[in-house]
């Protein structure tokens, strides 16, 4: 029989609280550049990783499929935008102020296509098998990027000079902050919409009990595939923005397994069954990461390891799960 998690059976009042939590988080992110204008780099990377984690979560949280290969989709977005932003590769009528965004769009389309084939092949595998196969698929994509010529090989790519977007310089950190901010708001809104849609309920049913969901007339493979394609599109869009932010990147930084793992862990530590969990996870871990970078230099993933171990052992629903537990205790006390 279907076991309902607190998320699916949460009373309506708390769901409204859920929306307010998102609004509050967005408000904090909105005023950030006015308060901490000097640390925009930190703000941008935090926002981008929050967006990655929320995109991952559409598949990893709502559909319950732990992908350890999402960096590949991010990489597709980054490569597509950078390659198509080079004027020589484009017909002249496309080198308008919108030029780089055609590349981002193409990246999203490719990522969706890759996810469709990838998911179609691997969603027959259960649990850890899917996680294993996602590593393999991502590694194959990484090998292509390293060895092909048009990808710039192991040296990677430089973002060329870009036309101004309505007078805004895309290499200006402020502009990049607002783009990343827009990305986070977009993923947050989409997640909220999914949560309340038919698809959202179907996904949660599949996550909790695949056979039960099938008995209700839901096609689990199709649902997972839809979630994966949506997740891939957002991931590729984020990848394009990441390429803008980095300005130069190589396969070793943008397609590597640790990046995939990092993205997944942000969502899981924050709480994968909730909407804001991945956002909270990214905010908390960015701050931790920044603090520990000074202490541990390049061993800053140590904190991820310790936190994921703690979360797995003591708080299986992540940081948001702890909040909810505290919240429901308050609720019953009233």
């Amino acid at each position, binding site marked *: 029989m279907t076991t309902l998690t607190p998320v699916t059976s949460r009373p309506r009042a708390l769901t409204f609280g859920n929306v307010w939590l998102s609004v509050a988080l967005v408000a904090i992110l909105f005023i950030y550049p006015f308060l901490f204008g000097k640390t925009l780099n930190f703000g941008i990377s935090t926002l981008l990783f929050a967006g990655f984690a929320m995109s991952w979560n559409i598949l990893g949280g709502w559909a319950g499929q732990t992908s350890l290969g999402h960096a590949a989709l991010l990489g597709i977005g980054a490569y597509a935008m950078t390659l198509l932003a080079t004027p020589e590769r484009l017909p002249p009528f496309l080198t308008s102020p919108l030029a780089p965004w055609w590349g981002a769009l193409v990246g999203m389309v490719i990522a969706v296509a890759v996810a469709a084939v990838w998911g179609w092949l691997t969603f027959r595998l259960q649990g850890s098998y899917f996680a294993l196969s996602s590593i393999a698929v991502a*590694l194959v994509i990484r090998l292509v990027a390293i060895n092909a010529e048009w990808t710039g090989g192991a040296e990677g790519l430089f973002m060329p000079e870009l036309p101004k977007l309505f007078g805004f310089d895309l290499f200006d950190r402020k502009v990049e902050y607002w783009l990343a901010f827009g990305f986070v708001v977009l993923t947050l809104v989409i997640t909220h919409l999914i949560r309340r849609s038919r698809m959202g309920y179907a996904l949660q049913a599949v996550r909790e009990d695949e056979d039960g969901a099938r008995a209700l007339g839901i096609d689990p493979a199709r649902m997972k595939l839809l979630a994966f394609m949506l997740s891939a599109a957002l991931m590729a869009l984020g990848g394009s923005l990441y390429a803008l932010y980095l300005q130069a990147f190589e396969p070793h930084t943008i397609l590597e397994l640790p990046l995939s793992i990092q993205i997944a862990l942000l969502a899981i530590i924050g709480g994968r069954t909730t909407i804001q969990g991945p956002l909270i996870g990214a905010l908390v871990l960015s701050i931790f990461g920044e603090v520990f970078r000074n202490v541990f230099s390049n061993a800053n993933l140590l904190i991820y390891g310790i936190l994921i171990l703690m979360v797995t052992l003591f708080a299986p629903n992540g940081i948001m799960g702890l909040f909810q537990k505290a919240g429901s205790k308050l609720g019953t006390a009233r």
Partner: protein
Amino acid sequence: MDQVAVTAFFQTLVQGLLTGGLYALIGTGLSLIFGVMKIINFAHGDFLAIGMFITLALFKAFNLDPYLSLLVAAPIGFSLGYVIQRFVLARLGDRLGEGSLLATLGLGLIISNTLLLGFGAQPQSINVPYAINTFKFAGVQVSVSLLIAGLGTVLAISALNLVLYRTELGRAIRATAQNPLGAELQGVKTSNIQAIVFGVGVSFAAIAGVLLMPLLYTFPTVGENYVTKAFIVTVLGGLGNLPGAIAGGLVLGVIESLGAFYVSNNYRDAYGLIAFLLVLLLRPEGLFGKTVKRV
């Protein structure tokens, strides 16, 4: 085929089989753990890295012969595995499937980053004269250290087999793998058995690390490269199937060597990955397992 081409083929084959033996050793630990506990150990490559760094540290400090490090690395690996199963994984209870994936990922990050703090990110190697020695057998060149590694693999796996099929402990392990509850009812302390199995699995990874050290550079995240090899080996052979792991290792080594020689060396790692995906999709029970009846 002319003589040169034949020799080149056998050269590639021997190279592949010897490398494959090492892959088999790494995969055996992983497969044993899966067979008994039904969990996939994502930190397996990092345990291998521990073996490599123990060898490196002992060589630097005492100029100790790398193969003597086995006497240190194997017990350390065993104790580490025992403690981790007892005090971390055993606590996951009924969340073992997904929980073990995340917990071992976390452990792996802790290990690799601790090694990074202790030893730095620079690739390091040890210099022993016989590591670069080779000898010729029927025109085929064989590296001495690769041969030693191959022999070590055969010894370790044979010892494991003896324990599994000739001792009381082995009976208890097999019983725990088949039916933990039934074994417990027969007086087997399954929690202890599972900790022993995890310990043995980890020590196999550490032993593989020691055997690899004279051949390769090491760095704190070296495990990443090998954990995927271990996954490939176990899936090729069938998860939890020990003879399968040996065969899977040899197959992987040979596929890589032949692909690198006859197709392109740049895609060396891709051949194994593609074979892995194909087997995962078409024959999840592994190349050599009994066909599982599908529902």
